[in-house]
């Protein structure tokens, strides 16, 4: 087996009886930083969930290069977390030590220092004792980045981390991602903002259920490729609605 990256071999994934990823092959080399972009419904989140092992590919194979998917760092779209949950900021960050201590071992005072440091690194010093329900969406996203810092993963998957996040936070978190890249971590990130991608991310995968282009960002995001992705997406909206959707009451 190859141990220098995450390899996709002819991966196809169906979701709700519809093909969402069709025959995708390629590699995320270790140490590289890749943006995934594409129209809505292009299968971006599905692809990331499949790499995480949450979904199984219907055909084809994903080779993580000898790394267990439980050691990957993963940040799903934050909308899925209930922010009124009664938990403090520092406790949320300390959850990042899970791979080290598991469900039952105690948290050491050293880990608490680490969590405090991680909070300062994301610009939230002094927020530790606050309840997460007092935070703005941007501040909460910073907390989740602090948790990732404690997880210290070699591979990091981020699903639209800047969606609905203020500009200042986006800039701060972008600089953390760039620092992760400098530390030779592998980063895969779903983004919509082409300017952001061009400015910070050397590699891009343009996805429209299949790979439109995958390589250096300036080649991938050519106007010809973007046009082709868009015209494929326009075709989806003309598809008849799913039979299973009609049954939902």
């Amino acid at each position, binding site marked *: 087996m190859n141990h220098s990256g995450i390899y996709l071999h002819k991966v196809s994934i169906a979701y709700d009886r519809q093909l969402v990823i069709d025959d995708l092959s390629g590699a995320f080399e270790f140490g590289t930083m890749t943006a995934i972009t594409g129209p809505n419904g292009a299968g971006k989140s599905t692809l990331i969930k499949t790499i995480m092992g949450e979904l199984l590919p219907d055909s084809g194979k994903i080779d993580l290069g000898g790394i267990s*998917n439980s050691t990957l760092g993963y940040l799903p779209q934050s909308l899925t*977390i*209930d922010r009124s949950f*009664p938990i403090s900021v520092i406790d949320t960050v300390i959850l990042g030590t899970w791979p080290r201590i598991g469900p039952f071992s105690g948290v050491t005072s050293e880990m608490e220092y680490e969590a405090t440091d991680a909070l300062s690194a994301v610009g939230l010093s002094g927020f530790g004792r606050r309840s997460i329900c007092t935070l703005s969406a941007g501040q909460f996203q910073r907390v989740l980045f602090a948790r990732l810092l404690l997880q210290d993963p070699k591979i990091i998957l981020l699903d639209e981390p800047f969606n609905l996040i203020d500009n200042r936070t986006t800039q701060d978190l972008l600089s953390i991602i760039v620092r992760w890249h400098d530390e030779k971590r592998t980063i895969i990130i779903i983004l919509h903002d082409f300017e952001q991608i061009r400015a910070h991310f050397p590699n891009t995968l343009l996805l429209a259920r299949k790979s439109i282009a995958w390589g250096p960002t300036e080649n991938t995001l050519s106007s010809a490729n973007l046009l082709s992705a868009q015209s494929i997406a326009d075709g989806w909206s003309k598809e008849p609605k799913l039979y299973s959707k009609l049954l939902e009451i």
Partner: protein
Amino acid sequence: MNMSALLIEPFANYGFMRRALVSSVALGLGSGPLGVLLMLRRMSMIGDAMSHAILPGAAIAFLLVGSISMFAMWMGSIIASLIVALLAGIVSQTTVLKEDASFASFYLTSLALGVLILSLSGSNIELLHVLFGTILAIDAQAIFLVGLITSFTLITLAVIYRPLVLHCFDPGFLRSVGERGAIYHLLFLFLVVINLVAGFQTLGSLMAIGMMILPAVIAKLWARTLPVMALIAAVSAVTSGFFGLLASYHLGFASGPSIIISASLIYAVSLIIGPYGTRTSIYNRSH
């Protein structure tokens, strides 16, 4: 009537009141914290369905054994509740029915079935006792079982606290670090079931879930951290048990409804004066 006659003498003079009090205190200590987690997991409906499944379970056991054997009725209730929890879970996951609809249909079925079976065999008195609770049936053996269930509940909660809370707060993260949340979920369901069964003698099968839900809602009006919420829920459950038993003694009400009404009164007061009650939301709205 002085305070002592009102608050203390019923327990000092009567063994059945003392046993009911011990049983309610133990029940409250376990059910309060469980209720908080049940509420945070948005599982109040599941709890409701499971508590109604106690009735047919106990009734079938009653029919089979032929006499009021506590042990048989407890086993019957536990098995029936678990079956309903699992079936309803499967139905809502595999069909187009949403969770609330599938649980509502399960609990209606359970209630109807339970009432039918009981009316076939016993008198109406027995039916009322199972539905609304009777403290006269609490003997030393029942107290021992309730105490055992509470101890087991608190110890298990302490051990699985972290994964259980995380499974509720951020299940995606729990999956991503390679943990299986299902095992903690099932363990939690089991704790809920045995506490409902522990409560059904005192509270009755219709009211057993009230000892979990109302204290949890009260706690949410007073606190913003989980440990404090669990503590407040336990304290308010125990307090409702104490005053509910007194009301039942002095006024001759059934014990279950009296305890739940006591909890409702604490809830009403908390709504008005609790830091996260109506006062704050009205205050916030005007600013």
